[in-house]
């Protein structure tokens, strides 16, 4: 829905950015007028305006980096490099995607470069192979979960389990889950950021959610459960 404070910017394919910093196919994009103004100010040489432009997205950039590099110090380094790269390349930004999507894509690319440099992805690739790679994911847990009381969401145990569960996901699933369910990017935006088809994003998202579900399930069989029997249903038949 268009509002007075937004404007739709449609640009043609010839205005696409370079692959290392740009987006995929052109889409209709809504950005706030304030954001468009800030971008123009920076593009015209007002570098201080860049602070106001990127500040709303620093958390998103940090989390996107963290979903790949998996430690705070590296995520901070990657986020800094990504934001600096966005500044350097802002004159080439043609607004065919939202600025936030473009910025997060740069962060993802920077994080991937960092992993390649550190060669850590090799170990993850081996682990992903062991876990079945791109093959179908079959759910492991069939318990009927109880209702989750709101106070449970505040429990340290749940937070710890959630972090551990997220960490257990292969990189390609963890990143999609963070972008979609934590950052609330759309399927289209997630596909743009990761350079994947929307179908591929949907597949990875479903598997990520199922694996998170299985990773969290034991908590609902004991640690967080009070007063209800853990009800198992028949084994899954696929």
């Amino acid at each position: 829905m268009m509002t007075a404070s937004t404007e739709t910017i449609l640009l043609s394919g010839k205005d696409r950015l370079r692959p290392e910093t740009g987006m995929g196919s052109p889409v209709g994009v809504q950005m706030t007028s304030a954001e468009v103004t800030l971008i123009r100010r920076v593009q015209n040489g007002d570098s201080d305006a860049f602070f106001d432009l990127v500040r709303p997205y620093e958390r998103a950039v940090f989390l996107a980096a963290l979903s790949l590099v998996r430690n705070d110090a590296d995520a901070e380094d990657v986020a800094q490099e990504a934001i600096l790269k966005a500044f350097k390349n802002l004159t080439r930004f043609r607004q065919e995607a939202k600025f936030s999507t473009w910025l997060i894509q740069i962060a993802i690319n920077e994080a991937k470069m960092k992993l390649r440099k550190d060669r850590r992805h090799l170990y993850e690739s081996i682990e992903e192979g062991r876990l079945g790679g791109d093959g179908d994911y079959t759910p492991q847990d069939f318990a009927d979960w109880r209702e989750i009381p709101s106070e449970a969401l505040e429990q340290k145990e749940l937070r710890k389990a959630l972090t551990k569960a997220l960490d257990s996901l292969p990189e390609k699933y963890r990143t999609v889950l963070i972008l979609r369910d934590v950052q609330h990017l759309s399927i289209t935006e997630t596909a743009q950021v990761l350079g994947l088809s929307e179908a591929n994003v949907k597949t990875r998202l479903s598997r990520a959610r199922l694996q998170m579900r299985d990773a969290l399930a034991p908590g609902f069989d004991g640690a967080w459960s009070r007063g209800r029997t853990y009800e198992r249903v028949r084994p899954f038949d696929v």
Partner: protein
Amino acid sequence: MLSCADFLAEFGDYIDDTASSDLRAHLEEHLRECKTCRVIVDSTRKTIDIVTESGCFTLPAEAVDPIVTAVMSRIRQRTT
């Protein structure tokens, strides 16, 4: 009727409420007969709620503020 495997292949759109009406009808027909898939849908929705509502990914301002501040410092050094 869809098998459980067929259901699982399509259940992402069902969870996100983006399935077409025809597909939704097929999926719901399967769900009426399959308790396992009902359980999976329910617990997956709860998983998404936990991920989105737990606040585990809400970073304190002091954790991210230095990032943009540091970048701006580098930018100002470049432009002066």
